[in-house]
């Protein structure tokens, strides 16, 4: 149990000021690595080269980089054409635009067509902050995971984002990866194991009473909540459930069986998100009391990332309260 904490987590993660790097940087690094490894990798961008961190690839492989202009639908279609012609295209934009605006092109021309395209949704979640609700993708996990043939990965930090980006080239077919903009705590290290489709226990206890299943940068809040709860005498477990489709059902069922109660944590609408995926699994195989941390059916607004996470109920205190509530429900109180 203590083992999981020491082996997998960044040493500074529980410091007062943990090391912070934007998750999107992992896209930039992973994309260049993927390009070095596979000459078939090409990158496409819709006038957001810098903020999607596509610049390094564009500089290193100018002949394999394509600027589409402000045209996300065309970007998806062009990628589909490349992806059925032996190339491995990565398309990058803000998640509200891609896979937001171009959802149908992704459905028909990439997913149904089974084109080998990797979709990078940037600036996802409410934490993109001051730009406001128009730019806060809080529906993308739902709209992507509902698609046949699609894989969905939500990395928790920059290292995991790099590994997830690189790993997308190991499978044939469409993959959606979600990245965020802000500097967020570095939870893992370059050596932390990452296998797509394999959830990792990041925090364990001798006798956990609740499984906190989280994805994305909120894995950090889940860990801090777990640590604080431990000091209050409540033992929990934190599962980093980075691959939402296909989900690691075995591991999820295993930890839920041990704990008997679940809190899911995601920076996304509760409807249709990662928590819903967990609920679908548990309803079918292991009905268990569950609380959902996420955005509760409303749009966001402008603000600082931490203010928004707090206002919309995804802070450490919210997770702790949810854990206490669900344990009460489990105990029939």
């Amino acid at each position, binding site marked *: 149990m203590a083992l999981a904490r020491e082996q997998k987590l960044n040493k500074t993660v529980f410091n007062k000021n943990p090391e912070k790097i934007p998750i999107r940087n992992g896209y930039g690094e992973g994309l260049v690595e993927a390009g070095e490894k596979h000459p078939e990798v090409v990158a496409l961008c819709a006038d957001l080269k810098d903020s999607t961190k596509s610049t390094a690839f564009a500089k290193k492989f100018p002949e394999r980089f*394509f600027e589409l202009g402000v045209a996300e639908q*065309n970007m998806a279609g*062009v990628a*589909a054409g*490349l*992806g059925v012609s032996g*190339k491995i295209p990565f398309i990058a934009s803000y998640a509200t635009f891609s896979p937001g605006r171009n959802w149908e092109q992704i459905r028909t021309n990439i997913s149904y067509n*089974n084109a080998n395209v990797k979709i990078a949704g940037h600036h996802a979640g409410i934490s993109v902050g001051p730009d406001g609700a128009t730019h806060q993708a809080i529906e993308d996990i739902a709209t992507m995971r509902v698609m046949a043939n699609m894989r969905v990965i939500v990395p928790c930090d920059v290292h995991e984002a790099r590994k997830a980006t690189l790993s997308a080239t190991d499978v044939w077919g469409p993959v959606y990866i979600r990245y965020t903009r802000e500097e967020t705590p570095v939870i893992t290290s370059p050596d932390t194991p990452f296998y797509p489709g394999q959830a990792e226990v990041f925090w364990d206890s001798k006798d956990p009473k609740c499984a906190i299943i989280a994805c994305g940068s909120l894995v950090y809040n889940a860990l801090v909540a777990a640590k604080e709860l431990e000091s209050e005498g409540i033992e929990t477990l934190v599962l980093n459930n980075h691959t939402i489709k296909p989900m690691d059902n075995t591991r999820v069922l295993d930890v839920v069986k041990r704990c008997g109660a679940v809190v899911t944590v995601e920076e996304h609408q509760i409807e249709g998100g990662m928590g819903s995926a967990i609920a679908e699994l548990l309803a079918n195989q292991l009905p268990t009391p569950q609380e959902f941390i996420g955005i509760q059916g409303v749009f966001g607004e402008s603000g600082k990332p931490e203010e928004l996470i707090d206002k919309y109920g995804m802070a450490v205190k919210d997770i702790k309260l949810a854990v206490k509530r669900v344990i009460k429900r489990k105990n029939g109180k």
Partner: protein
Amino acid sequence: MYLSEKEQEFLEKTANKIRRKIVEALEDAGSGHSAGSLGMADVFTALYFHVLKHDPKKPNWENRDRLILSNGHIVPVQYVAMAYAGYFPLKELKSLRKIHSRLQGHPHRETLPGIDATSGPLGAGLSQAAGMALAARLDGKKHRIYCLMSDGEQQEGLIWEAAMFIGKNKLSNITAIIDRNNIQIDGLTEDVMPLEPLREKYEAFGWNVIDIDGHNMEEIIDATNEAKAISYQPTLIIAHTIPGKGVSFMEYDFNWHGKVPNGQEKERAIKELRSIKGKIRSEYD
């Protein structure tokens, strides 16, 4: 012009065979799109039996020309042309739009070898053509990408995103063909949402544009040859066609866009298509 009289006659007879089979297949399917399928029979005949570099026995041949049917609803004409070309047995046409079939109502790349792109939702073909053309250019391959579109789907914004991108990148390995039959589901294109001046729009986006009679084999083939010869810009062929071509009661009538003939109408249509220009009865098949 490279066509001998014999070749021309062969192509015209083949187009007529294809029309008859389209009418049969659509009647049998009980739903589908008649007007566009019949209207494009000559273009599809020219492509599959003269223009395309392809091998029906090796549908995944790497150096084949690609054919994207952006307006997937007229896929019956493609299926029939493919069957006559030898991609699959003619009798499989009876499975059109039926359960457990490879002949889906709209083309699906994964289901039928020889279909290069999945389509149906309009306006998406040209983008995919651009991707295929980029891949060919990156790999130094010489095959061409043919993208067939309807006129109605020019109303989709996505078409113009793609047209802009193809113009910018001078993807001269693309030959796009618009079926300019002037009809769409709700009526005449110029009433529903005017497209003209269509030629000038594409020219402004950096394309070479050729207007042709889409029922004249010589003009179809000449235009595709001109497109091959131009190395500095993409080419659009605006093929002026008659919707429902060859069946008098369907011609020019937008009501036949998304309708199929019943048994009686089928018999009438086949009878008309068994003659040349509606006059001389012919027994060839």
